[in-house]
């Protein structure tokens, strides 16, 4: 590294005893720094081009090699030089494994970082990426960190080198990459009708996801007493106010301590909480309503089929099969006349409540004469019965193949099933297809650790409500075993949305992405 010819004004020698701590090799001179004020060559060097087959020791080949080496050395030894005013200054917090900063410069705040207690924080991978891009300077114990120190400090506990490499790779491509937020509680249906904008913002505040470490939990233990105390105070205050009784405060506290701890588990947080999220929960508990507030509906609207009443003239529901219903219940074909409904949509407020069209009431007030031969008690039973097809046992169908049903192993189809080829084929399908996007049996399998949610770059991206990601990434090393299909399917389907899961396999810097997608084999229906 040449120090460059210095003008008479610029003294290169520094006051002694400098250079006892700083290495002189990598320090740029003022001249070199000054050269960076003007626009510099920002083109990445050429990569690729035709290669030769085998080395032949020729002079031309030697020349090409030399020029490649020279260019590479020149490009790699360039330093990062920035103007002080365009640098964000941050501070590394070793216990929390986060970088704190005060003033943001540039546009990174729209898709990176979070606020907690009016302090701005960055995750270590975000901070390291900003450092490598020349936008951030992080100091630790009074001294700014070099990128080398950043790699050592930031990639030790919270995130591994492999995960950081995948993160940086995706970021360099331009994606917005966030830590995996878990299942998104807003269903597709709610998103379609625009309900997600009205859901309480506080509930959907971005979860701060850090991996639990001993250090953090140690601090939690110290703080958790004060957290519990604060929760106790707010709860006890509310109780005495409501009661107005003279019950002693200590009694209430003791009684309610258990209750509060129980409540906090109801919210359904995962055990790897850290200090920051615990504080947030106390804020929620300050409002009395929120003590028992559950997240909004967990119905899976993908499975519930609503008839589309708005776009048809008449809406018809299929009649339930009479033999399955209790005896004294009669139903007729239900047809809903949309036009008629629309025309009388706004009756008088009083009238609406009192008005019952007797012709719509369709049940018999007679008691059954013989003992009730109730079969299905409720809709669940009805559906079960339908599935098991136990109707056949009640009918006295004489069939030449009756002996087939007397053994343990019965045929899959019955003559009555032959309504259409599709119906028949469906009954024959013993092996169920795996569907990655349909929900799993319900239990959450976290054997596959998903690292990141990846979003497409978007002007309207909001950190507080990022929405469904474009895809999710799980980082694996090539020396790890191959994941089995079961954990893949359950990881994907337990998230209950359409974002695919990409596996990033990384081996000493080489990253390859794999994904598993649904296929349905075509069913060939040639007749019927």
């Amino acid at each position, binding site marked *: 590294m040449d120090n460059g010819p210095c*003008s008479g*004004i*610029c003294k290169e020698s*520094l*006051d002694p005893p400098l250079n*006892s*701590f*700083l*290495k002189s090799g*990598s*320090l*740029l001179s*003022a001249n070199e*720094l*000054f050269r*960076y004020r003007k626009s*510099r*060559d*920002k*083109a*990445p060097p050429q*990569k690729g081009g035709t*290669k*030769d*087959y085998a*080395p032949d020791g020729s002079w031309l*080949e030697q020349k090409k090699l030399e020029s*490649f*080496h020279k260019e*590479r*050395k020149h*490009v790699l030894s*360039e*330093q*990062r*030089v*920035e*103007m*002080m*005013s365009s640098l964000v200054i941050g501070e590394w917090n070793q216990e929390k494994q986060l970088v704190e900063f005060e003033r943001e410069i540039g546009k990174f705040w729209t898709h990176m970082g979070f606020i907690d207690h009016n302090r701005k924080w960055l995750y270590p991978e975000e901070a390291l990426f900003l*450092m490598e*891009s*020349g936008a951030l300077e992080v100091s630790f*114990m*009074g*001294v700014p960190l*070099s*990128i*080398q*120190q950043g*790699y*050592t400090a930031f*990639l030790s506990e919270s995130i591994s080198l492999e995960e950081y*490499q995948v993160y*940086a790779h995706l970021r*360099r491509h331009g994606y917005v990459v966030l830590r995996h937020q878990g299942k998104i509680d807003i269903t597709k249906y709610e998103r379609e009708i625009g309900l997600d904008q009205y859901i309480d913002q506080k509930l959907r505040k971005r979860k701060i996801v850090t991996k639990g470490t001993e250090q953090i939990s140690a601090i939690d233990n110290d703080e958790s007493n004060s957290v519990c105390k604060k929760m106790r105070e707010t709860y006890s205050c509310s109780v005495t106010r409501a009661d107005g009784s003279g019950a002693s405060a200590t009694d209430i506290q003791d009684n309610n301590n258990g209750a509060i701890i129980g409540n906090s588990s109801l919210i359904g947080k995962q055990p790897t909480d850290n200090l920051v999220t615990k504080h947030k929960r106390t804020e929620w508990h300050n409002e009395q309503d929120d003590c028992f507030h559950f997240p909004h509906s967990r119905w899976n609207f993908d499975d519930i089929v609503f008839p589309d009443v708005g776009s048809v003239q008449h809406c018809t529901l299929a009649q339930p099969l009479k033999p399955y219903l209790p005896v004294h219940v009669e139903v007729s074909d239900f047809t809903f006349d949309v036009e008629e409904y629309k025309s009388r949509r706004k009756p008088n407020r009083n009238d609406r409540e009192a008005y019952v069209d007797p012709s719509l009431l369709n049940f018999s007030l007679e008691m059954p004469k013989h003992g009730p031969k109730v079969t299905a008690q409720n809709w669940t039973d009805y559906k079960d019965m339908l599935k098991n097809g136990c109707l056949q046992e009640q009918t006295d169908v004489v069939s030449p193949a009756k002996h087939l049903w007397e053994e343990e192993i019965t045929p899959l189809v019955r003559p009555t099933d032959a309504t259409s080829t599709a119906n028949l084929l469906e009954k024959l399908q013993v092996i169920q297809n795996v569907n990655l996007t349909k929900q799993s049996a319900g239990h959450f399998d976290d054997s596959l650790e998903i690292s990141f949610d990846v979003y497409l770059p978007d002007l309207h991206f909001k950190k507080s409500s990022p929405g469904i990601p474009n895809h999710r990434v799980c980082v694996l090393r090539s020396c790890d075993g191959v994941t089995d299909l079961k954990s893949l399917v359950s990881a994907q389907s337990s998230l209950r949305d359409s974002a695919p899961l990409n596996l990033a396999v990384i081996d*000493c*810097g*080489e990253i*390859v992405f794999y994904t598993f997608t649904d296929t349905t084999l075509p069913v060939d229906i040639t007749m019927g």
Partner: protein
Amino acid sequence: MGELSLHVSNGKIFVWNAEDAATLREEHRIVGKLIGCLPRAPRQNVYLGLPLELLPEETSLLLDKGVAKLVDDSKSLQKPYPEQVQELERFRQIRYEQQIELCREARKKELYRNFNRVKEGKIAKHRKQLEEHQKAGETIDDSDLENVDVDIETIPSHGIPRLEKKHAMVQLFTETPWVDHSDASQPVPWTYPQTELEQLRCRVFTDLWEKGHFLTSGSKFGGDFLVYPGDPARFHSFYIARCLPHREQFTALDVVAMGRLGAHVRKTMLLCSLGDNNQIHYTSLQWSGMS
């Protein structure tokens, strides 16, 4: 020249110095993989920058040959001496003051360069003033109009604004600028290779390297290493090396898979194993199309 420094950080080996990375490639045929953002173009994935990450086999080789030594990077995060903090602050302050001077000089040079235009502008202005006076009725000597001149010294040099601290350029260190004061007598432990497979990989790597090849990670092609006849920048690899235990059985299906893979990418599959006589056996697999 002294040994190169390989930095151990969270179990991985990095080279942070561009000179060292160049030496490793040019003199010692060790390629490694660049994994950082390139300073001049950080938002692209085609050409990455320092650090250079080394395979554990590459590290073992370099340590065995005595070319490099290991440095533990976790020590660099210890609390700095107060003199260290002061030294850096003083360094930055000196650079800032030097930049003030450079800035002023550059501005002056710019003025000198544009002096002709400035002069013309001032003369024109002066002339206009005189003409206005003439119109107003004053008698002006015509010779005055010709002799307008502007002296360079009259341009006030204190009019050039002083460079503010926030506009100073500052170097963000990629490689740690601090001198390594760690104890040289306490070597950093290096525990690779451990398992039999790792030992095999290490042996194969060393053996192929000693034969004069360049080797890189082979996971892109489903193997352990890629073997190049020359620098990977100029040549394609000839072999995909795959390390297998000598006595382990594999099925014909594996053979077909490996053969097909090699054929599709125009490389020879090289199966490497450690024989009973502690010699490495190389078996090549090439799909010969019989038609």
